[in-house]
């Protein structure tokens, strides 16, 4: 009779097993803050539609200490999410070739991160300009 008795190890707590998995969970977990920020934007939109008093209340919340703390936290989490997103981008794209040579993953990540920075500054700059009534 066969003495074979293959042993299957449990998967409980697998996400704590390796620092790589912990980082992965952190990356995925920060997506919750993307969702929170979207909710906040939606709340602002509803407040805008509901009239001046509601909009005033919304902006007052944004300027309050809890509002600033919340948005500060969201910003940090989104930055982490964004940066880690660009770091794994080379794994998800088809090979990019320039002049017949394959572009290394680190270059793709760097270009992505640079594009994120440029776009962020452009958006912030545009709204600063709007806020100043186009006076620069």
């Amino acid at each position, binding site marked *: 009779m066969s003495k074979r008795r293959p042993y299957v190890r449990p998967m409980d707590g697998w996400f704590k097993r390796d620092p790589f*998995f912990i980082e992965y969970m952190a990356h995925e977990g920060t997506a919750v803050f993307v969702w929170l920020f979207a909710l906040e934007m939606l709340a602002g939109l509803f407040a805008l539609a509901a009239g001046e008093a509601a909009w005033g209340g919304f902006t007052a919340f944004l300027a309050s200490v809890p509002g600033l703390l919340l948005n500060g936290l969201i910003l940090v989490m989104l930055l982490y999410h964004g940066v880690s997103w660009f770091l794994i981008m080379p794994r998800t794209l*088809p090979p990019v070739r320039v002049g017949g040579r394959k572009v290394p993953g680190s270059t793709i990540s760097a270009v992505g991160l640079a594009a994120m920075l440029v776009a962020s500054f452009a958006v912030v700059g545009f709204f600063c300009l709007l806020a100043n009534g186009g006076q620069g």
Partner: protein
Amino acid sequence: MTGQTKTVAVLRYRPEQDEAPVWQEYQVPYGDDTSVLAALNYIKDELDGTLSFRWSCRQAICGSCGMMIGGKPQLACKAFLRDYPERVTVEALAHFPIERDLVVVMDGFIDKLQKVKPYLIPREMRALEDGEYLQTPEEMDLYAQFAGCINCGLCYAACPQVGLNPDFLGPGAIALLHRYNLDSRDGGQAERMEMINAELGVFNCTAVGYCSEVCPKMVDPANAVNVNKMNSARDYFFRFLRPAPKQGGCR
């Protein structure tokens, strides 16, 4: 050899006597060039002949010595005792059932490799007198990276989705599938697409990316999987635009 020894802790499992795996420690003399595989061979030859493990080439090409070393999927012949300060743990590859000690059951993995039709399904029928199927270096370059797989299984041990759902096709098999799909001589894409699209295909992957990190051959299976997510989506939305596949061919 420096005359010093290092502790090698091995997860033992002998189905005829162990209910569950147990750790056993060995003191192994080592030098700068002592690989974990050399340490295991020392244990087997000098300390404990009952220890079971797989190996063959000692040079990271046969793919048989994959195991968890210091908790990470590695080739035992490519990991060195010098990199572990006092003690190194050695365990059978994660996400595979343990057959005995460091030997795992590979059957499921081998089945998956076979399932993806890892051979050329010629794009067009050629008679013998037409000569061989030619390919330019550029055409070969497209898939060469994915042809480097040595079937060591490290990517499966790195993939939590394989651990959670052992039926998931998994990184290695999808990289192999991709290798043939990218081959200019091959015409089997449509047949293989079924496996990509299936419940157990690419969408089981949650882009952890550790498979590519541990691959000893720079195959980048995560890339093969994720590129095929795009292919699968394209196939789903645009399949009605594609001409019906040619029937026949030399199969």
